[in-house]
């Protein structure tokens, strides 16, 4: 019995190692996905691919342009993990999803600071990029504390002691003791940051441990900045339709694109089925059939893609309040362009694959990689720069940007007010579709001959 079993194993192994698709799925796909996930997770944890802290962009709009405001900007620039970019229209950039967070230093910051008051700052944030927001907030804290408390701590401390009836004669000595203690804490903070930069600590993602002992329920993102005079503003609340959730918007955009790719590649596989069952030959023997076959298959894919998206968004509208009706026109246009691009991708896969098995193996690998790089699984801005660059070459990223732009940011097809339009994404998707379909047509002609056409 054992001999027979071994004999079977040998035979199955021989077949397995000759099956390129099986090898691809069993050996290459896990490596690719683990690499993509691992690198992205590392990025989300704040580490760069080189092991240090991955800097995240922070837009700073300095309307005060005083010595104090410039000092704050300099502290932020010196802070590990923050890539300061100066701008003049912070609200618009956050509103359009170009940056996750922006710090606005309003007029009067310098004067308030000189007067020994805690000066006011405004932190504009995009709640749909909460991970970036959390990490950035945590990384800004040392600079904000040093700048705000550092400048105001003397007058504040003296005022506090006077209010509590502390003997006036001891106020100078008490302030000296406070200064010594503050300097020690600043040194400790710098030391801890250095350790984080060396990777000896988890990155500065706030966790439950960051909350005060006893579970006071303090909101790190809002309460701590508030103590430092920072007013936090969410600037991307819905302007159209019912209240929205960034998570729901992202999930529906991601699933729409990823599942569309899977179903349309499967649909394109009917071309290979036709080849296997001989009907493709019969079709090719119809006068002028060459282009008609490709067009017919593409329209078929477009039909099932449209049906799939309609069902998905209707479900989202009724169950998750996805704002479909107020954005119907934009969603229709984006869906049309996405379906067109994905249909082109499906046809390209089908015309280059020899068998359905080969089609399924290669397409699974590429769809999953594109989904990861294109932001369907985790925020693109948290991934390494290389991945963000690669992501721009995926249709997933363009489609995700367009859907998310409409569903979350309330963008229209054309620019409106401070909002950009999504027409560039739509145009890129259409261009991708055209290129992929032309490549598919060329491959189809080469493979099946064009005489019958």
């Amino acid at each position: 019995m054992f001999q027979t079993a071994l004999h079977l194993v040998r035979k199955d192994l021989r077949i397995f190692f000759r099956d390129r698709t099986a090898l691809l799925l069993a050996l290459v796909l896990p490596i690719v996905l683990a690499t993509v996930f691992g690198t992205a997770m590392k990025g989300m944890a704040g580490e760069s691919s080189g092991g240090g802290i991955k800097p995240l962009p922070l837009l700073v709009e300095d309307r005060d342009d005083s010595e104090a405001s410039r000092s704050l900007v300099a502290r932020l620039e010196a802070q590990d993990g923050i890539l300061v970019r100066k701008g003049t229209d912070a609200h618009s950039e956050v509103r359009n999803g170009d940056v996750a967070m922006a710090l606005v230093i309003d007029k009067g910051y310098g004067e308030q600071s000189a007067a020994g008051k805690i000066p006011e700052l405004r932190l504009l944030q995009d709640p749909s990029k909460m991970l970036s927001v959390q990490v950035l907030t945590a990384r800004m804290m040392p600079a904000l504390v040093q700048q705000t408390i550092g400048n105001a701590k003397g007058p504040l401390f003296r005022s506090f002691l006077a209010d509590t009836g502390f003997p006036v004669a001891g106020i100078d000595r008490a302030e000296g003791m406070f200064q010594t203690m503050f300097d020690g804490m600043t040194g400790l903070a710098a030391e801890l940051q250095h350790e984080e930069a060396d990777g000896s600590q988890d990155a500065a993602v706030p966790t439950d441990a960051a909350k005060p002992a006893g579970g006071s329920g303090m909101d790190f993102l809002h309460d701590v900045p508030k103590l430092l005079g920072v007013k936090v503003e969410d600037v991307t609340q819905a302007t159209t339709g019912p209240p929205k959730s960034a998570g729901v918007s992202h999930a529906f955009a991601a699933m729409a694109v990823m599942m569309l790719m899977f179903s349309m590649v499967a649909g394109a596989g009917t071309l290979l089925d036709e080849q296997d069952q001989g009907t493709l030959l019969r079709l090719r023997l119809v006068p002028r059939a060459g282009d008609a076959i490709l067009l017919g298959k593409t329209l078929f894919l477009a039909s099932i893609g449209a049906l799939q998206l309609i069902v998905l968004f209707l479900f989202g509208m009724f169950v998750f309040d996805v704002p479909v009706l107020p954005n119907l026109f934009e969603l229709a246009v984006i869906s049309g362009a996405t379906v067109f691009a994905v249909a082109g991708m499906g046809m390209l896969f089908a015309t280059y694959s020899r068998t359905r098995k080969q089609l399924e193996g290669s397409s699974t690998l590429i769809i999953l990689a594109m989904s990861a790089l294109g932001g369907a699984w985790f925020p693109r801005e948290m991934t390494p720069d290389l991945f963000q660059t690669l992501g721009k070459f995926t249709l997933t990223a363009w489609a995700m940007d367009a859907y998310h732009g409409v569903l979350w940011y309330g963008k229209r097809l054309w620019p409106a007010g401070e909002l950009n339009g999504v027409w560039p994404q739509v145009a890129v998707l259409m261009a991708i579709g055209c290129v992929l379909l032309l490549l598919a047509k060329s491959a189809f002609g080469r493979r099946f001959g064009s005489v019958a056409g």
Partner: protein
Amino acid sequence: MEDAISLSGLQRRFGEQTALAGLDLVLHRGEFLGLLGPNGAGKTTTLRMISCVDRPDAGTVRVLGCDPATDSPKILARMGVVPQELALYDSLTARENLDFFAGLYGMPTGQRRERVGWALEHAGLVDRASSRVGGFSGGMKRRLNLVAALMHEPELVLLDEPTVGVDPQSRNHLLEMIDGLRGKVSLIYTTHQMGEIERLCDRIAIMDQGRVVANGTLEELRIQAEDSLGGDHRLELQDGAQMERAMQILQREGVACSTISVGADLESIFLATTGKALRDGEA
């Protein structure tokens, strides 16, 4: 009137492999031509040239008076091809399959309905018209496969092993269907079943190594093949009862005799012409 098909000096290579090496072949109008050959002889490549799917490296092809290189739509509109594979959609019913294939030729709805009715009747599938093809027997599928190629009333029909894998009854029905096309179409029939060729075809062309090595009616082929059949002589008997007496006479006269054959059959001719070595990998 020009021949239905005229192939002259056709050459076709696939890499190092020669599929056609100067093929000459003619199909006269209204004629049924049997195309025989071992695997790799070039039959499929020849059919691909005729059906405008492939082009020769050299030589000329004329089909229904047209050049496939420039007039393929004209040719394809007048030609029906029955591929070796069962080129049908299993998920569709017999009627839906036929309606689809008729629709490909731009037939109006009324005419399409009429042709579907004719095809179902002709294939003996009226009772199963609304059944999905996936549940059909091999014979039923073969019959449907045949009539699907006739929906647009072609004047030239190419049949590539149309009876593979069917039982004798279905084979007989198929052959009767094909025979029923006589006088309406010109036809090329490829198969490895010699009996089918003998039954259907007016003329037979035997191919080997990319060219026609024998060509003519069955009688002509018999005469051509006599030499290659060796030193055998034919003894025609009136009936089987004379066989025993003939053997006794031959034995008494000391005539060595290993085989008694009542006329050379087509298979003998075929094997004598092309040899008995196995051929793997059809071009």
